[in-house]
């Protein structure tokens, strides 16, 4: 496919996809490369990194393996990030489609709701939601999605408003196609690509929000997350800073990977098909 070829040609895309592939591989193979419960005690407490070959990144205050925690934490981070972004985009697409396609009073009401959600900071919303509903993975995913769906909704609505005026939509109406079919089959598929371009940004933001929630102790207590690891390490920050630095680095690399992926995707989608600067033109070759 042309989009993939163009994507591969952008340096951001390449680096992003390499980072993400490594992370996803790590997360998927966590039970193989770091078997056992990452929350179990693996050795003596506060072992320094690189001091014990069986515990390469050392242990925390309770003697839990830091490397195992980071690998298993990648699962939670990526899972929550992807699920929250997926939910946010799905809700955003639906609301944006309905608002843009119906117009009038429906549009007004829905967009005011979107306004309300955009005004409240997403993180505060997530915080309030989790403290009311109790911390568990599905609740955390919902909480993050709640603060992230407004942007895709706005973007989808703008797309739908312009697509709605196209001749092929008029042609579908002239045929007598029911409005629901026009919206779902003729408008929605064309409105999705620009929303997908911002989806990676939403994933990155979701991963950070999840880490922040865990840091505050509002993550799922039964799974290891990078946020909770940073929070744990905070108590011994002066004597054993690596306990916070290691998961912090993992977080930075992940968000960077997602951002680069998103940049590459946006470039590939906006760049015209035939911009191959490296190809010599006729008569220009030395």
């Amino acid at each position, binding site marked *: 496919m042309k989009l993939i070829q163009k994507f591969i040609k952008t340096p951001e895309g390449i680096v992003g996809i390499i980072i993400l592939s490594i992370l996803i591989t790590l997360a998927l193979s966590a039970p193989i490369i770091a078997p056992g419960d990452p929350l179990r005690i693996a050795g003596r407490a506060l072992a320094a990194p690189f001091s014990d070959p069986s515990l390469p990144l050392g242990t925390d205050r309770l003697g839990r393996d830091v490397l195992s925690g980071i690998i298993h934490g990648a699962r939670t981070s990526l899972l929550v990030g992807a699920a929250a972004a997926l939910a946010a985009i799905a809700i955003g697409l639906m609301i944006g489609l309905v608002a843009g396609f119906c117009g009038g009073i429906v549009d007004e009401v829905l967009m005011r709701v979107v306004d309300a959600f955009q005004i409240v900071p997403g993180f505060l919303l997530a915080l309030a939601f989790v403290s009311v509903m109790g911390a568990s993975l599905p609740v955390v995913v919902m909480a993050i999605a709640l603060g992230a769906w407004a942007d895709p909704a706005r973007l989808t609505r703008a797309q739908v408003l312009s697509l709605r005026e196209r001749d092929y939509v*008029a042609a*579908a109406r*002239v*045929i007598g*196609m029911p409005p629901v079919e026009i919206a779902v089959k003729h408008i929605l598929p064309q409105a999705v690509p620009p929303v997908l371009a911002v989806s990676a940004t939403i994933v990155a933001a979701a991963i950070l929000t999840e880490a922040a929630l865990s840091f505050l102790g509002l993550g799922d207590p039964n799974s290891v997350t990078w946020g909770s690891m940073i929070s744990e390490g905070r108590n011994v920050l002066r004597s054993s800073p690596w306990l916070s630095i290691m998961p912090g680095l993992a977080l930075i690399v992940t968000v960077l990977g997602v951002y680069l992926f998103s940049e590459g995707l946006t470039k590939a989608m906006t760049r015209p098909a035939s911009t191959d600067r490296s190809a010599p033109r006729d008569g220009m070759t030395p």
Partner: protein
Amino acid sequence: MTLLSVENLRRRYVSTGRDIVAVENATFSIAAGETLGIAGASGSGKSTMARLLLGLMPPDAGKITFEGQDWLSLKGKDLRRQRSRMQMVFQDVLGAFHPTATVGETIGDPIRVHRTVPKPQRTREIARLLERVGLSSDFAGRPVYELSGGQRQRVAIARAIATRPSLVVLDEAVSALDVQVRNRILELLVELQREENMSYLFISHDLAVLRAVSHRLAIMDAGRIVETGHTSDIIEQPQSAAGRALVAATLRLMPGGRQTNTIQQSEPTYDI
């Protein structure tokens, strides 16, 4: 027999605070099997007229009677069902098709929506329609964007006639095509009209095209119909200023334009 009658149709836009008249007091009718050409310069309200007739936008005032029904009172499901009777061919030879649809899906849509033939015979019906507009049935599997402008317009015509409408509105349907392709499409339209006994409302800025297909002409200027009459009468002796301007512009562009007084037939011709 009158198929369509339009009375005092009016539509205005508000654009940057100014009231713009798109269609004002338009009154005309089309008989069964007849072609009415609507001519006018850009911005004279021709396309708005097409959109009003097809219910793509509501008029501010006026009455449309189509096949004896009050066309503007139809809503929702009733309107969608009746849409099979009035179809449209758009100017944009690519924009009027779903960006990723195949020819078969495009022509299949009206057949499916209106269930004109039972499901198992749909493929055969699509092939029949394709052959009807001069395309081979192998085209069904090809994406519309792969076709040439003329082929796309043939697909658009096949889609429009799939529900056996009594009126087809053609909004600048051949304006984007080169002259040779245009002439073949016009021939096809005239032939289809004769066989299916359809009426056409043919909108164009090009009098040469309208002369080839229309029985009667209406000249539009600034949203108003300023002149109606038999095609040859108007082309020979336009009464309105807008009509004279259009005829003068056409004569200048037509090869051998000075001999236009050789037109005498009222039957449409398609040698331009």
